[in-house]
């Protein structure tokens, strides 16, 4: 299952992070708290998740509990994949 985290981490590393926050961020760290992703960035991240994992992120699911850390994304995407 850590596959999801690895893919998302790689995507974030490729697209958003630079500097010293990049290397350090832990699976449980909030992207917002550490200023890794801003509001426009989250919209891009959602597009990535939808394309990469073939899921549809509903409006109601666009919440930090689902999206604002690698742990949260893994749990959320896994749940969506089971439903599909």
């Amino acid at each position: 299952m850590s596959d999801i985290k690895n893919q998302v981490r790689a995507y974030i590393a490729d697209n958003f992070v630079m500097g010293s926050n990049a290397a350090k961020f832990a699976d449980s760290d909030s992207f917002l708290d550490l200023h890794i992703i801003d509001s426009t960035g989250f919209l891009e991240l959602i597009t990535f998740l939808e394309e990469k994992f073939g899921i549809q992120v509903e409006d109601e699911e666009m919440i930090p509990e689902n999206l604002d850390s690698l742990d949260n994304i893994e749990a959320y995407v896994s749940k969506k994949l089971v439903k599909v």
Partner: protein
Amino acid sequence: MALLLHQFLDAAVASKPAHVALISDKRHYTYAQLGEMVVTLAAELQQRGVRRGDRVALFLDNSVELVVGVFAALAAGAVFMPINPLTKADKLAYMLNDSRATALVTQATLEPIYADALGHNKTVRSCLVVGTSTLCDARIASYPVIGANNAAVADPGLIDQDLASIIYTSGSTGDPKGVMLTHLNMVSAARSVSTYLGLRGDDVVICVLPLAFDYGLYQLLMSVKLGATLVLERSFTFPIKVLERMVEHRVTVFPGVPTVFSMLMNIGSLASYELSSLRMMTNTAAALSEEHIRQLRGLFPQATLFSMYGLTECKRVTYLPPEQLDIRPTSVGRGMPNEEVWLVDDTGKRLPNGSTGELVIRGSNVMRGYWEKPEETAKRLKPGPIPGEMILHSGDVFRTDDEGWLYFVARKDDIIKSRGEKVSPREVENALYALEGVYEAAVIGVPDELLGQAVKAFVALKPGYGYSERDVIKHCIGRLENFMAPKYVEFVDALPKTDTGKIKKTGLA
């Protein structure tokens, strides 16, 4: 009547101590509590040597510590500088050095940025950090908790001509300029804006905009002035969360920019949120389309909608009374109370109604100039009708109709407005040139449904270099606030030139 900006808070603490002043991060703070936190931090700042007129930089997310920082810096006699937490190290260092800030108040989650900036700065003597800092630097100390400092705050002896704030804004030269605002400027602006809006002491205002942006900052200042309640959100990143907060706290006032309203209206389940308490929405930074105005009014029929226009140099310029919205939906209205605006031609001559020209502003809300930039100041502040007074040349071209209502036409410079934020093409180009192998770069704004304008870069590379679009964007994110980074990068062999060899942007799209 308050003459100094922080007297807004003193008055509210005295008259409504138990009223909730702030709701931030799910916690409630009464005016009395806020007042106590301000005294603690102001005493700490003074003990650390902050004196009348010193600059105190506030590099924080929207938070109670930032709110307290604003009023504490003022109470200590200092000038507060709100800095967007998306700012990167080079620019933070530039602002600290340019302003010769003596204190920095920040948060541990921004450590990689402020640590780097402090390494290039010698003026800051104290850096107060919210959270645990791991940095080894004698200047670092913890943001004081209530009671940590029981010293009395010495009266700094301010008058309303003293500076209250320096707010950095993007300029066409690429170097940010510090807009100097006095207590009189800010008290006047807060009074005029809250008067025409009709804000009340029982309002609950939600702020999703950064307090480093004057539109966000004034939500705080006006809310405190009225003794109202401010619900402070860090951002509009998760609109559903903001909606839940609006329902929970029975929010009455929602200030937004077109990108925020656009995201709001895209939420399919919007109608299921009980928002009947909402009585007012305000928009500025960029114009709402007629279609968006129509949709918003359909969604919130009980709420009045104010279209407004402003610039940091004088806070707000115009507003359209809501009852005019059906008559002239694309107008930004007229000058606000206690302020005079008119159009001038290229020679500075006042133009009659029905003309097109540069908008000028006269009023006690007009800035004192750009910090230590006399040439830039002279371009914007020019002699007014009364000897010795200065009026502000906005740099924006408007037209008036026969009745004098104003319509935005164009900017005189090439500043891009993306997501409601100003983006200086030169600043982005400077960042692009810092990427090894970039031979030429030109940056323009292109229309974008969500952002208003998106930043687009044209880049010519030196032989032997190859980058992807994403490589270039990522490089820019490392140097610029994220909203300034290009959304699109187009690689070209060479950029078009003028006869004198300068890069010519007309024709790029």
